[in-house]
């Protein structure tokens, strides 16, 4: 009896020591290895398992079983009004590079960024919206599963999301005029063309990080891939589109000028009537 209580004491002491060490280590471990407690492990396994299921039924056909974008569907093509053929490659998740982010240039996207793409799809590509097809849990799980394809998600710390606050004057004629000057000075036309048709003098030489030729956006032929809201246009100038030729203007252009450029872009896209 006495011996048993001694063992109990040791057990309690060890448990206490363990908890103490564990608690002090938690802040250091956050984001590195979120879950090694038994319960959390099971939870994470369950999420990945569900994510895999969702991926295999909804994503794999284009993005491939290894997440490298080499799915059964292969390369898809779209023809624009002016006859330009756009080749669409399903995103290669093994690189961990994403264009449509609200995080700065060179950063991994925020979960919410991926959620938006999965929910709304990508215009002018073959990525369909899954708003009504997948439950929130399924979408969250597939995001976690997508992250298993690239080591970047484990190696890099997350970046802060860029705040976007649209000024009232965006789209005003004065702002459009100022934006036109910015468009000229920032040499946007070198790739996107004087009239924004994506046919500038540098437009045919650009290649993406996969070595594939990539065409600059033609503003007059439809929606921006991430959606054509003023905010989306602004964030594109700010973050750049990682993996493509579109650089970030966060350090080259102040916020106000970026918003003027939004105004001019909206004009080129023929979207100003709906805004004002």
């Amino acid at each position: 009896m006495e011996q048993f209580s001694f063992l109990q004491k040791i057990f309690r002491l060890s448990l206490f020591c363990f908890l103490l060490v564990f608690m002090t280590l938690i802040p250091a471990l956050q984001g590195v290895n979120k879950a090694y407690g038994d319960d959390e492990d099971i939870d994470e396994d369950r999420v990945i398992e569900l994510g895999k299921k969702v991926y295999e039924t909804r994503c794999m056909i284009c993005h491939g079983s290894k997440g490298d974008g080499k799915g059964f569907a292969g390369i898809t093509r779209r023809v624009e009004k002016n006859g330009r053929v756009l080749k669409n490659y399903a995103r290669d998740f093994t690189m961990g590079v994403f264009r449509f982010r609200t995080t700065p240039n060179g950063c991994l996207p925020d979960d919410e960024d991926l959620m938006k793409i999965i929910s709304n799809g990508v215009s002018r590509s073959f990525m369909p919206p899954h708003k009504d097809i997948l439950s929130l849990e399924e979408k969250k799980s597939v995001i976690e599963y997508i992250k298993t394809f690239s080591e970047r998600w484990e190696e890099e710390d997350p970046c802060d999301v860029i705040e976007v606050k649209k000024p009232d004057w965006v789209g005003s004629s004065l702002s459009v005029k100022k934006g036109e000057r910015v468009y000229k000075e920032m040499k946007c036309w070198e790739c996107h063309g004087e009239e924004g048709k994506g046919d500038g003098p540098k437009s045919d030489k650009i290649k993406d990080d996969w070595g594939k030729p990539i065409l600059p956006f033609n503003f007059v032929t439809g929606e921006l891939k991430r959606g054509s809201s003023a905010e989306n246009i602004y964030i594109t100038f700010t973050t750049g589109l990682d993996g493509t030729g579109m650089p970030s203007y966060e350090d080259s252009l102040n916020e106000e000028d970026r918003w003027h450029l939004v105004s001019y872009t909206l004009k080129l896209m023929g979207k100003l009537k709906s805004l004002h």
Partner: protein
Amino acid sequence: MKKIMVFTVVVALLIPALSFARKAKYEVVEVNNGGGIQGTVKTSLKVKDPVVPINIQPKEDPKETEIERKTCGKTQQAGIYIVSPSNEVKNVLVIVEGVKKGKAAPKTDLTINNNKCRFEPLVSISYVKSNYIVKNSDPLFHNTSLGVLLKDKRRAVYNLALPYQNQEIKKRNRVAGLIDLKCDAHSWMRAYVYSSRHPYVTITDANGNYELKDLLPGKYTVRFWHEGFQEETKEVEVKAGKVSKLDVSFSKTRKPDFLGRL
């Protein structure tokens, strides 16, 4: 019973330790009686440095076209093969791979200049947590796109717009590895940076010589990388207070990627 409990506690304590080990990639220690590696990089091949034709597409405003043609020139000496009369190769990156422990890396920032439609320097070293300072000395638009070269891929690190002359952008170096630089506006532009967590990286001089100092004694793998040659790796043992000799001769050329973009 007691043993089981002790074992449980030990294992429980080890788990966090292990996950720490995964994150800790390089440990800074004091190196008092380290050793060095020294050598020369040569080539057994006769190589010729190509001349790159510069093709500027005409712009709507002829003045803009003129400025660009004047700044970039009609041709550029590629500068791939800078080889001395005794076959010594300049601009070879000499990288000690997989170093776990050693001196702290310098905190020096690296300036990359877009000058006359070329990146300067062509080959350089940057250290993780220091800064890249990207400059544009030309009166025209450049964008500087940095990508880390993985096995068979290039992954975006930064892509910065530099529309004005004398513009400067400072960005923190967050990604280690061999970084490739390009400018989407000028397909011939390229440069290479080795981004390192440790100080054991260097570049060969005009006589093909290099020197690495203050390594902890032990066995190391050294990688010799050059844009125009097949890379070589060599094993070397470093002994305390001694300098190990390690020469290399490149015997195979390769076509730098940027030539394929022209």
